[in-house]
């Protein structure tokens, strides 16, 4: 009997520990789903807790019966086994009861599913495009669009010397350009991808939807609470799958409108600077300096900082494209992409492309001495 009592108090302790850890600070639990900040995320959380509790009870009953048998019917206590091997009544009971529990769970699950899949009557639409390894956001109603990628510096995660690195609080969960959304508005989210399948996951909204190249998916969210929310790409999408986070800043409609205005102003200023840069004739030194910056930001992730490539990503050091092909062919490949290489024509300004082409043709011993001017890039973009 003392064993039984021990077991019983153990189970109670475990249940207390489990439920306290599940409930402790549900806003930001490191043990459990979070209730999140939308009506659906709260309902998903409630359904999750319902199934957790039901399954805990079922498990305790099954394990209890096993434990009872193990203690009560061990050979030393119960030397003569019973002979029964069949009971239609029992078998019907344990077919029907689980079926009833499942129906009990399936009804709310079905209802919630219909709700989360209903994208109608939205107030605004954003289009999210995944590409290796960044997100592009397009505010369809506001004429705002930008790329968003990991802002955690490489020094924080590349620790191959195994000395440990200083890491910020939002390590791997921070980006250069946050997605800003208004609260209280039903936002329709369209998803697609440029290269492989990605998946846009924002736990606090209970939204996870695949971004698939060549197809468009849709989902929605309506955020109740202002704040900064962090998510990740959930579908294996190649080398840096673990390094393409998502950050959403939810603000009031007024602040959202202000942000849109600010984005428009930034865009106008950037266009003006790009046009200025494209109009002037650049020196080799300037192109190399700017080219290095662009290369490290956009190209080094695949072709590596030393230009030697990695696995399936080709080397640029001494390669045909950077040394033998004409500068025009080289620049075209950067602008329009080729095979697994994405097109950078829309991502980079004319001056940036000119700089990075010049840089890769004159770095790591690729001493072609050739330089490309932004004006030529503009012509190439136009197909000339």
């Amino acid at each position, binding site marked *: 009997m003392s064993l039984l009592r021990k077991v019983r108090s153990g189970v109670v302790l475990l249940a207390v520990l489990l439920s306290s850890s599940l409930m402790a600070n549900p806003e930001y639990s*490191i*043990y*459990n789903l*979070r209730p999140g900040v939308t009506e659906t995320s709260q*309902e*998903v959380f409630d359904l*999750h807790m319902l*199934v957790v509790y039901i*399954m805990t009870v079922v*498990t305790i009953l*099954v394990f209890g019966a*096993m434990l009872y*048998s*193990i203690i009560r*019917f*061990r*050979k030393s206590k*119960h*030397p003569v*086994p*019973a*002979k*029964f*091997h*069949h*009971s239609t009544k029992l*078998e019907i009971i*344990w*077919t029907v009861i*689980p079926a009833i529990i*499942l129906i009990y769970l*399936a009804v709310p*699950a079905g209802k*919630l*599913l*219909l709700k*989360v899949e209903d994208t109608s009557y939205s107030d605004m639409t954003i289009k999210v495009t995944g590409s290796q390894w960044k997100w592009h956001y397009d505010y369809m109603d506001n004429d705002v669009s930008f790329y968003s990628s990991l802002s955690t510096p490489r020094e924080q*995660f590349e*620790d191959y010397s195994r000395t*440990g690195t200083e*890491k910020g609080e939002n390590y791997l*969960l921070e980006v250069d350009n946050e997605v800003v959304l208004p609260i209280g508005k039903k936002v329709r989210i369209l998803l697609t991808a440029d*290269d*492989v*399948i990605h998946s846009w*996951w924002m*736990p606090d909204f209970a939204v*996870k939807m695949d971004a*698939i*190249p*060549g*197809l468009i998916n849709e989902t929605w969210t309506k955020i109740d609470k202002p704040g900064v929310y962090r998510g990740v790409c*959930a*579908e*294996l999408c*190649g080398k*840096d799958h*673990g390094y393409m986070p998502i950050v959403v800043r939810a603000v009031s409609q007024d602040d959202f409108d202000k942000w849109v205005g600010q984005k428009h102003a930034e865009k106008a200023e950037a266009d003006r600077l790009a046009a200025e840069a494209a109009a002037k004739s650049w020196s080799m030194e300037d192109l190399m300096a700017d080219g290095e910056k662009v290369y490290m930001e956009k190209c080094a992730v695949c072709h590596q900082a030393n230009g030697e490539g990695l*696995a*399936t990503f080709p080397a640029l050091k001494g390669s045909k494209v950077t040394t033998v092909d004409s500068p025009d062919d080289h620049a075209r490949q950067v602008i329009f992409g080729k095979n697994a290489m994405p097109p950078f024509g829309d991502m980079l300004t004319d001056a940036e492309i000119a700089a990075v082409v010049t840089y890769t043709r004159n770095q790591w011993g690729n001493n072609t001495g050739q330089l490309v001017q932004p004006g030529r890039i503009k012509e190439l973009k136009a197909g000339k």
Partner: protein
Amino acid sequence: MGSHKPTGISRWLFTTNHKDIGTMYLWFSFIMFLTGGAFALGIRLELFQPGLQFWDPNTFNSLTTMHGLIMVFGAVMPAFVGLANWLIPMQIGAPDMALPRMNNWSFWILPFAFGLLLSSFFLPGGAPNFGWTFYAPLSTKFGPPSTDFFIFGVHLMGISSIMGAINVIVTVFNMRAPGMTLMKMPMFVWTWVITAFLLIMVMPVLAGAVTMMLTDRHFGTSFFDAAGGGDPVMFQHIFWFFGHPEVYIMILPAFGIASHIIPTFSRKPLFGYSSMVYATASIAFLSFIVWAHHMFTVGMPVVGELYFMIATMIIAVPTGVKIFNWVATMWQGSLTFETPMLFALAFVILFTLGGVSGVMLAMTPVDKQYHDTYFVVAHFHYVLFPGAIFGTIAAVYYWLPKWVGNMYNETLGKVHFWLSIIFVNLTFFPMHFSGLAGMQRRVPDYNMMFEDFNRMSSIGALGLGLTQLLFFYIVVQCVRGGTGKATGEVWEGAEGLEFTHLPSPAPYHSFDEAPEVK
């Protein structure tokens, strides 16, 4: 014929004896288990702390991919085929498998298949890095050159599995001893026949998927490329039409094993034999119509999602029946806890935990949160490690004395069990928490909030891996004499022709004359 037994290397190369082939399958599986385990330790090493310390992310992806492929196709499946070879002829009173030469061939394909697959680590671009599920277009347009080695490796394994399955079906339907009707067959035979039908139906689908990949990669087709009129989501439908029955291929024989061991050590017949058979058959049938529950985030029509949710939840019913029947078998029995029984009980308990998280994952709206997180990793490792692998280990402890004629060291067996059970939970239980809290699968790095759970998993994995070396020692020691001779019955009151009609060790050629089954 009785004692004829070739010797030396030619015995193993040319053998058509089901026992020799079974032995080779089991050793091969163990070598693959250690290989896949080494990759797992490589993964856990990197995940011990945040940041990249040991592998670049690409190599990390190769490790996860190869860990999955090797464990699924190299460790679990050959282990079950090895057990089938050893046990099915003895359990149905047949002298051998029906197609012995094909049996030899289906084994000897495997070393080549896995040699091809493992050699890809040394190719430029590295080993396959797109996950064991090899979703297009990551595996087609973006796959490394070694993807073609992977494709041919999968073809070879598929041929081997299909031949093994044909052999089981032909043997069971044609070579049963007189009097052994279908509904008198041992549960292990039943579960394996059903598994064999699953294999025959889905391995060709897998072969089709990789062939389409091959032509997409090299011959200009666009099955999975939307730019050419294809559909990347179609790949997932085809893959999971194979993949979901594959999950049951990896668990049904373990159900059979538990249905032998629990009655023996409860000294009571299996409760509900016929409902066990029907439950297994229903699970197998249902496994064909639930595949898209792996794809609740690809953007299926809502009606499809509803259907796949409900169909999936139904599987819990026959699975529950099996678990309740095992518990009822123990009820009012007379239980002892030798190592096979301990592993079989741990199998039932921990498989139930995996089943419980399975019900949670079936529910579409919440699955959209769980999908592609460590919660899923926890779920399928609970059904695979304590499920398939504990099942296999239990079977080895249970039948090894019959195979080699010696008893293993019971104390060491118990040590092996307790260490395994502690470490398996230390490794996989924390993954439930990190998954729910937001850690996605297949990443080499993570935010500090997941650090504690990952540390636990890494420590557990190291312990779990080292513990299995003890298993190796116990088996070798048993083969070399163990702790004494086993009786013909081996276990008090053990049922089945292999225990009641054959001495230990079972002779090289058994049942030259069919026994009579009443």
